[in-house]
């Protein structure tokens, strides 16, 4: 028997934690009164982002060309933007680095992008809690 699709919960039920969680890592969990989880997420994601900056990681900018370039640069840009306010503050305050040919800076670039990807996981978790799909 085919599985029936669950109806999507109303937007007002999950919009606030999702938006807050994107803007500030862990804030979606704070909004849902999951203080410890929010604190851990904020610590881990913000630390990863800050270490990425300290390692002179570079923010991606959307760039098109061949498929590989498009996927790497547009995907990387989306991952950076997923850091929310951290990304906007860092670019606004001029922490956007020029590309450096060092292994540490390369690690830093990955730290910045992965912090954003981890924040997406945190936002999805906040959505699931708000929608009642997770205890």
């Amino acid at each position, binding site marked *: 028997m085919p599985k029936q699709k669950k109806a999507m919960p109303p937007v007002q039920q999950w919009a606030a934690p999702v938006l807050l969680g994107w803007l500030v890592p862990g804030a979606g969990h704070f909004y849902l009164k999951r203080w410890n*989880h929010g604190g*851990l*997420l904020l*610590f*881990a*994601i913000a*630390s*990863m982002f800050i*270490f990425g900056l*300290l*390692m*002179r990681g570079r923010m991606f900018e959307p760039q098109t060309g061949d498929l590989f370039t498009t996927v790497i640069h547009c995907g990387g840009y989306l991952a950076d933007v997923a850091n929310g306010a951290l990304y906007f503050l860092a670019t606004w305050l001029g922490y956007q680095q020029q590309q450096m040919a060092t*292994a*540490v800076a390369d*690690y830093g670039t*990955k*730290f910045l992008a*992965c*912090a954003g990807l*981890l924040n997406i*996981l*945190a936002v*999805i*978790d906040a959505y699931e809690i708000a929608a009642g799909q*997770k*205890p």
Partner: protein
Amino acid sequence: MFLSLSHLQAALLFAFFASIVLGVVGRNTDKERIRYGVTVFGYFVAAIFGLGWLMYFGHG
């Protein structure tokens, strides 16, 4: 300020932060979360050393 880390230090730092997030979002109870986070960190470390040695021997 420029933070200069070795490959190992950077990879362990990455594993530490990623394990915290995966632990928090990956399971439903706090006990399971801690267990899962520690397990994921262990897998990260095993992969770091395993791939490191693989590259060492593969390089010739």
